[in-house]
């Protein structure tokens, strides 16, 4: 069963399957929603950070006296002032809170200050004199690989190593460094509690894991640090790692005053991890009928200076290196290198984006070598529910509607063949570079697959509590809303499960509830949603049992036609249920990368229509349509919003977004030169949601956040190849790549 989204948002029932308006929408529209950037406390100080201007250097000395001499400066802290664990990190605690003897990337924090106001804090930071002995930076990931400077190596071996096909195609591909670039920069407020502890309100995707790292570095007991969900202006992976969290708490405890920090934009580019740039070598073997016989791949991603989540991103890249296709002979070797480039980590798609660009290019090359239609080739090899993952051998237990995705894409209407004659609709836009006669149109397809939830045996769970009050149902959670609409869908789940019309989400801190896990890996709807459904269902059962009823609604508990307990009475009882939901367990891979490594999968396909001016190498993405495997769309309008937003990020990676590195230094850490797509760059999008029962998510829902970014880039690249005949082996594609100069 498939659903095409209508254009109207329902304000009526607000249950699962509806598209109620979001509960924080009005506040955000009126500018009243409180983000971490907007927080304020009495007697608040402002913090600022001193950062390394070198990608690699020994720190010879730090002279903080010029900063202390400035009036209004309350604290200047360096590595020696970190009382607990000197390092932090999501996978390994390898990153210094403040650099000690050595700085390993451009922008690495060396010292932090707190002062009376923002301006004084920045001036104080600028006044600190750091003497560096500049060292040569290691910036070439292939050299790092040769030197064995790696965070992780992956080996995947499945099937007959000697299998060979009659048709073989090889290719080398590159993916540049994309940035999440959420509009809200890193921001937070830390408030000392007067008893040696601290409350932290900061931009985040996972408050419990922030809290753990703050506790460790401050040398406190867990009960002394509370991390509170704060208003976040976008994340896309940039908020998973700690950045200002420990600094703020250090300054707050040192000064005894609340301390606030907001990174400015160029600082933000150094203040969070980026998408791993990748180099990929592939060899695809097929038989004469186009069945994949063997895929060999080498995947090299550059993790930069510190580990962050490189090990998991590498694993993901390797696991999805073949794509949503059956293949019984696979060999993938991967490395996540350590260099003096800026640290890389989570960004929406998490390794699958990079390999998808490569495997889809390979499939098109194979189709050309076989003289076969590229869609037929994909259909012939499509991975479906019940099949084994080509890389890990894991049986896919939930539906995987790959064939339906392909069929849906093909069935979508194409735009008319005429190239419009007005600059609004031509490459170059108001730059007036191009006329209709200069344009060639190309259509390209790509498929992608992504895991949902955390993998490789990670204990992935979320806790939620549901209360029944006079204001309706309240869902308490530490799950972070970053804009994706979790606050809307959790309330919908509560309404559906309880049968009441009033429900809203209350964000609580780490001391009030157990972890909800990370807002990432497309997991929150499934895992926090699962916890909410379980808690709400148990609560309903408990209420009915308590009053001997068989139905609950806004009026209260009914038994048959009798109201046995009015809602006032039920609410006054203060009932609640807490549930911890775990997805089906996964296992770590064996030494060949084999095992039940993933919790769930989603497949998506994209079709891009692009108009190219081949003489100038300019591209306009006219349409980018998609069909996506969503399990059950709990809020179709929100799903559409995630799809359109993800597609735009995919287009960005395809044609304009790249952090340019020069010997470890970012040359374009600003919005003038790191180009985010504008409204004039947005293609028209039609999104078809493919719903099939069988996933373990609430009501059969699958996560939807990442699939839109996975094959959208590859589809744009494919369309440009069709239009121009150029091989397009790297993204982002630059005009010179299309022109060939």
């Amino acid at each position, binding site marked *: 069963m498939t659903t095409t989204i209508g254009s109207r948002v329902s304000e009526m029932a607000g249950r699962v399957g509806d598209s109620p308006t979001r509960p924080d929408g009005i506040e955000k529209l009126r500018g009243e929603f409180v983000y971490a950037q907007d927080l304020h406390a009495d007697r608040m100080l402002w913090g600022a950070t001193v950062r390394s201007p070198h990608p690699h250097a020994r720190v010879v000395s730090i002279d903080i006296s010029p900063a202390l001499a400035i009036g209004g400066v309350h604290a200047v802290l360096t590595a020696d002032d970190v009382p607990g664990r000197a390092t932090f990190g999501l996978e390994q605690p390898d990153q210094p809170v403040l650099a000690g003897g050595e700085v390993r990337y451009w922008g690495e924090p060396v010292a932090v200050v707190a002062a009376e106001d923002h301006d004084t804090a920045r001036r104080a930071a600028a006044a600190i004199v750091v003497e560096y002995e500049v060292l040569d930076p290691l910036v070439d990931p292939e050299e790092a690989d040769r030197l064995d400077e790696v965070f992780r190596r992956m080996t995947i071996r499945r099937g007959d190593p000697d299998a060979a096909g009659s048709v073989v195609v090889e290719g080398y591909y590159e993916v540049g460094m994309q940035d999440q670039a959420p509009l809200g920069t890193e921001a937070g407020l830390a408030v000392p509690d007067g008893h040696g502890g601290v409350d932290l309100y900061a931009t985040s995707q996972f408050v419990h894991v922030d809290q753990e790292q703050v506790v460790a570095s401050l040398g406190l007991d867990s009960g002394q640090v509370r991390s509170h969900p704060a208003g976040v202006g976008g994340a896309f992976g940039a908020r998973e790692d700690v950045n200002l969290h420990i600094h703020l708490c250090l300054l707050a405890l040192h000064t005894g005053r609340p301390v606030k920090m907001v990174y400015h934009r160029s600082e933000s580019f150094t203040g969070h991890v980026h998408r791993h740039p990748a180099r990929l070598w592939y060899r695809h073997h097929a038989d004469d009928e186009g069945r994949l016989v063997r895929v060999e791949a080498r995947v090299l991603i550059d993790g930069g200076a510190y580990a962050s989540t490189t090990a998991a991103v590498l694993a993901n890249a390797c696991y999805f290196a073949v794509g949503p296709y059956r293949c019984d002979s696979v060999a993938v070797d991967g490395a996540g290198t350590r260099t003096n480039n800026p640290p890389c980590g989570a960004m929406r798609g998490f390794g699958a984006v990079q390999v998808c660009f490569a495997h889809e290019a390979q499939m098109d090359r194979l189709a050309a070598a076989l003289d076969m239609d590229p869609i037929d080739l994909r259909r012939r090899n499509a991975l479906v529910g019940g099949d084994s993952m080509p890389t890990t051998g894991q049986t896919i237990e939930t539906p995987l509607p790959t064939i339906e995705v392909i069929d849906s894409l093909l069935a979508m209407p194409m735009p008319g063949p005429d190239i419009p004659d007005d600059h609004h609709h031509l490459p170059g836009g108001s*730059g007036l570079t191009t006329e209709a006669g200069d344009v060639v149109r190309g259509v390209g397809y790509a498929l992608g697959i992504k895991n949902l939830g955390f993998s490789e045996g990670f204990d992935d769970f979320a806790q939620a509590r549901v209360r029944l009050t006079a204001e309706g149902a309240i869902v308490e959670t530490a799950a972070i809303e970053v804009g994706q609409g979790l606050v809307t869908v959790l309330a919908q789940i509560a309404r559906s499960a309880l049968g009441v019309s009033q429900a809203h989400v209350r964000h609580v801190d780490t001391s009030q509830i157990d972890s909800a896990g990370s807002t990432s890996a497309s997991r929150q709807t499934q895992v926090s949603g699962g916890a909410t459904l379980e808690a709400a269902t148990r609560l309903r059962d408990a209420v009915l049992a308590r009053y001997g009823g068989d139905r609950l609604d806004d009026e209260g508990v009914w038994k048959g036609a009798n109201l046995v307990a009015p809602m006032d009475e039920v609410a006054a009882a203060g009932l609640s249920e807490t549930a911890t939901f775990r997805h089906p367990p996964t296992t770590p891979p064996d030494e060949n990368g084999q095992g039940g490594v993933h919790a769930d999968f989603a497949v998506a396909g994209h079709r891009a229509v692009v108009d190219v001016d081949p003489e100038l190498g300019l591209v306009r993405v006219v349409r980018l349509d998609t069909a996506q495997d969503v399990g059950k769309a709990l809020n179709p309008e929100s799903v559409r919003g995630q799809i359109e937003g993800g597609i735009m990020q995919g287009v960005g990676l395809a044609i304009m977004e790249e952090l340019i590195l020069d010997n470890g230094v970012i040359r374009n850490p600003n919005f003038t*030169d790191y180009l985010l797509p504008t409204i004039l760059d947005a293609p028209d999008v039609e999104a078809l949601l493919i719903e099939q029962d069988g996933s373990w998510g609430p009501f059969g829902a699958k996560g939807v956040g990442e699939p839109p970014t996975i094959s959208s880039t590859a589809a744009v690249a494919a369309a440009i190849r069709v239009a121009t005949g150029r091989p397009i082996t790297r993204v982002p594609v630059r005009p010179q790549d299309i022109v060939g100069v």
Partner: protein
Amino acid sequence: MEFHHPTTLDEALDALDVGAVPLAGGTDLMVEVNFGHARPDHVVGLRRVEELRSWDGSTIGAGVTWRRIEDLGPKALAEAARTVGSPQIRNAGTLGGNVATASPAGDGLPFLAAVDAMIDLRSSSGARSVPWSDFFVGVKRTAIEPGELIVSVTLPDELPERQAFGKVGVRNAMVIATVCCVVTRSDDGTTRVALGSVAPTTVRARAAEQMISEVGTPTESDLAEFARLVSEEVSPITDHRSTAGYRRHASGVLARRLLERCLT
């Protein structure tokens, strides 16, 4: 800090004389301030000086915003205006600011080069007008002297009938030009070609101009030769936005297309 709010040109010039930094739309200076590269503590705001916002035939006040030029400017200058930044930038940014900043990528500057505009300067001790080619001397450097203010840009009374503007960028809005170009052609065949972002200052492709001005009805091979000459006369660099090779190539392509537009 000290901030002057003059309403007349004389008041503004007096403020300059005591060391105030001029501020018009703020679209260049405030970026410097926000990034910590400039911290002027003595500023003269020019927004309220009526004389600077006047537009008298061919003399455009330095304080005229891109928004007005979009609607009222000569064709190629209006087309350039529509590509400056964003609607918000165009509401604030001024022609005089674009001239004073003198970025090689300034969107309005190739037009001034193509028509040989005059830059009108005033100081408390006098006035002078400087031809564009003498005014823009290097990257972000002009012939302006201390105490001088750009008050207007004067275009020739007769502008070429055919004008075309083009700007190459990777995004459809808010983009710094990789290459930008203005081509003008008069009825007698006189052709002017000016480019931006391909040299430290705006470039007039004079060999290309000369060659094509003598051809009444250019053929395909004339146009190809014209494009080749243009791409030889630019000296672009490779930077984080583009490569020298691409800029050189795009210069020829763009100039040719703009000329073809003028010829139809």
